[in-house]
């Protein structure tokens, strides 16, 4: 027996049944190396062990996960120590309060000094941070996290499991917790079900088995920075108390913030001396600031606004595949969309490749009318992609006896949405359907965000923007579940018992194989029913000056500049 085999056996012996199952899936070629790392970190395997297995057991190394090459990090190279990295960030909408933040700028502020149990990186793999490791019980209904020892807050106070428990208790508190964190943890984790048996252990007792739980408490849930148990989240903005590699020097609302290296950091100390964040009210001045050398790193820009950066040799563009998307909903309980053939016809009229090229300069992946974005490891790529087919669409309308109807499409004036709406209107015209656009401001479209008081949720047809989620669970439940308690954003008013049952199974599934089996059925069911058209999932784009290396972006708004530096 050679040394490699001996070590494989050793890793296998130390691995749980679930982990061994994952290794089997990799060895048999069912999942790629990237998926092995992604899923392996979620179920609690260490990165060194995973890299060893990935290298030793060979396997299929091609990557179907993201269309984008280039990774999320600016290329590594020899960098000078120290320096000041200047960042352009969209202005946070509210005070920096972990319970209130629901926007990209705010998430950037939380992540600037705060740390999460783990960091969900650009490949959706979880890198341990405050948690050293984690593992589920047999059915995934109890998850036990081991908290790193020797972690201190910026004020010198030691971090214990009690801080972790209190942080999450506050986030999921039904009375005044974080609305955003609850959108991920609602129905998964209830208040009072988190325990700290000792200083370095936290046990989460879930409401139901959940195979992706570690992701739901990682940086992907951007509100979940661990803060001291005795700190009121409303006061967080005064100190930005956290455990991260940078600490607050100054913060001016609506202007910016300055962070300096935390020399007491538990891990590798940050390279830059200072990170200077400037807030911008809009995208155009951010892009100009990067071009005009007033910032080194642009946290996020859009294809529409930043076309000048895309082919600019003086700019590094960082692209990350994400699940960020638009949903075009059709009310399944209202004419003319009660017949699924009519909904399919609209979906078939749309040329998705043209949308991706025209609206995103190719920096997006086409959708297949379910939330299963190509980047999710559980997405079954064997489900046939829906392509434009005008003849079939016309036939379906004829079969349903619904030719030549007129319908109103409601949406709001943001991002590329008005252009998308116009293109959908044009596509529908090709099959004889007249769509009248009603494009308003965001406030009018979203209204109060509850049924009966929101154009978004009440309109017969509408386009809604959805942010990135590291697992599709929220899209599957909030936007499509029949139970009104779960399907709070079910704008299509979709009710299907078979679907609800499949989603329950999907959420509980612990390994990729079984997740993918259920995912396939959900994908096929949604293609058949088509309550919502998912035209594309677009990339998250950041940009940096060519001499800035090691800057990391997350699609949720945080950025990690601890390894960043300037080349000579």
């Amino acid at each position, binding site marked *: 027996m050679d040394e490699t085999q001996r070590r494989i056996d050793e890793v296998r012996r130390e691995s749980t049944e679930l982990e061994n199952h994952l290794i089997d899936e990799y060895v048999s070629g069912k999942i790629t190396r990237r998926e092995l790392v992604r899923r392996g970190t979620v179920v609690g395997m260490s990165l060194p062990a995973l890299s060893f297995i990935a290298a030793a057991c060979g396997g299929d190394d091609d990557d179907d996960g993201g269309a984008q090459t280039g990774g999320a990090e600016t290329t590594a190279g020899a960098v000078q120590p120290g320096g000041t990295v200047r960042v352009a960030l969209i202005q946070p909408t*509210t005070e920096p309060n972990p319970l209130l933040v629901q926007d990209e700028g705010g998430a950037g502020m939380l992540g600037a000094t705060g740390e999460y149990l783990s960091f969900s990186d650009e490949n959706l793999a979880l890198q341990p941070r405050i948690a050293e490791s984690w593992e589920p019980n047999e059915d995934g209904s109890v998850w036990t996290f081991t908290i790193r020892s020797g972690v201190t807050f910026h004020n010198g106070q030691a971090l214990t499991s009690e801080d972790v428990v209190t942080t999450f208790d506050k986030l999921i508190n039904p009375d005044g*917790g974080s*609305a*955003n964190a609850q959108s991920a943890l609602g129905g998964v984790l209830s208040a009072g079900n988190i325990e700290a048996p000792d200083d370095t252990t936290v046990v989460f007792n879930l409401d139901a088995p959940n195979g992706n739980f570690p992701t739901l408490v990682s940086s992907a849930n951007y509100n979940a920075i661990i803060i001291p148990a005795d700190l009121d989240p409303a006061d967080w903005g005064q100190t930005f108390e956290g455990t991260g590699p940078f600490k607050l020097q100054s913060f001016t609302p*609506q202007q910016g913030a300055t962070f300096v290296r935390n020399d007491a950091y538990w891990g590798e100390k940050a390279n830059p001396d200072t990170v200077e964040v400037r807030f911008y009210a809009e995208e155009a*001045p951010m892009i*100009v600031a990067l071009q*005009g050398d007033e910032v080194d790193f642009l946290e996020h820009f859009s294809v529409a606004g930043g076309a000048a950066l895309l082919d600019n040799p003086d700019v590094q563009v960082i692209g990350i595949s994400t699940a960020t998307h638009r949903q075009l909903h059709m009310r399944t309980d209202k004419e003319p969309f009660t017949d699924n053939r009519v909904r399919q016809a609209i979906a078939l009229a749309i040329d998705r490749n043209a949308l991706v090229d025209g609206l995103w300069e190719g920096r997006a992946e086409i959708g297949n009318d379910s939330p299963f974005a190509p980047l999710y490891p559980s997405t079954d790529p064997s489900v046939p992609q829906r392509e434009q087919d005008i003849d079939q669409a016309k036939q379906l309308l004829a079969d349903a006896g619904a030719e030549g109807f007129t319908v109103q499409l409601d949406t709001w004036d943001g991002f590329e949405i008005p252009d998308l709406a116009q293109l959908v209107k044009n596509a529908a015209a090709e099959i004889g359907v007249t769509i009248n656009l009603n494009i308003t401001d965001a406030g009018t479209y979203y209204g*109060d*965000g509850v049924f009966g008081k929101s154009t978004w949720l009440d309109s017969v047809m509408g386009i809604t923007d959805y942010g990135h989620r590291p697992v599709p669970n929220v899209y599957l439940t909030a936007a499509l579940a029949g139970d009104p308690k779960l399907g709070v954003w079910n704008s299509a008013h979709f009710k299907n018992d078979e679907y609800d049952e499949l989603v329950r199974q999907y959420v509980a599934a612990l390994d990729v194989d079984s997740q993918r089996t259920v995912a396939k059925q959900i994908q096929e069911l949604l293609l058949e029913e088509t309550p919502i058209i998912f035209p594309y999932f677009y990339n998250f784009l950041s940009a940096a000056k060519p001499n800035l290396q090691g800057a990391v972006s997350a699609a949720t708004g945080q950025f990690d500049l601890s390894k960043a530096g300037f080349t000579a």
Partner: protein
Amino acid sequence: MGRFLLKRLGLAAITLFLLSVIVFFGTQVLPGNVGRRILGPFADQSAVDALNERLGTDRGLLTQYWDWLTGLFTGDFGTSLAQNVPVTELMGNALVNSLKLAAFAFVLVVPLAIFGGVVAALRRDRLTDRIITIGGLSLSVVPEFVSGIILILVFGLWLDLLPVSARAPAGASIPTQLEYLLLPALTLVILLFGYIARITRAGTIEALDADYTRTAVLKGLPRRTVLKRHVLRNSLLPTIAVVATQTGYLIGGLVVVETLFNYPGMGRLIFTAATQKDVPVLEAAVLVVGTIFLIAMLFADLLYSLLNPRIRYSGTE
């Protein structure tokens, strides 16, 4: 004079009060509420309700307004609903920034436009006049985001001569700060030059044609003296009024310029507060801008009487 001032102050107080009422109830007409604006469209209604309760924005409108008004009289501008910091803290910075930019723009545009207007009047109907009036007018109708972007592209990016944003690094010297403010100030010069120059030109022409000017010329005064003592004194009156009316815009209305040059001033503060329904910030900022505007108008009136003794503020109507 004393009675005149007293009366003006009284009127100003009433104006400001009405302004506060309009702003307060005006913002309530917009859809949505503060809690919803802060937590976003995807938040649970119960979370929104809880936040509104905490912020006090679930109470009756009159109660909210009364609380705000009584707070104001004790010198308390309140706390920003969206940012959870005292309004004075948020507004202090913005006001200083706005005053800097407005002052710089004024210093550039007023002498330039007056000079242009007088030259145009003296060369009435000749080429110089045409260039100044038509050129100035053409520039005035260019929206500030267009002229601003062109200035940024040319001087900031292509020639790389000036900073593309208006905010100088912390602790920068005054010359550096002015360097950063030059492009936004020039954007305002482009916008205002034509307007002010045109008014000055009209005033100057009127003064040139007036009997007193003819008398002055006929009695043999040198041209320079005629211009200084008789023409300019009178021609500047309408110009002063126009310049004064621009202060409100320059202090509180520069949303586009401030956004384009990423300059945190009063315009952006007011705009952000309005979109977020952050009423304490909105009220305070609008009242401050309104006060500055009223002071500028008063100042203009006083200057009027100084330049033109025919206008007397006797207080007896």
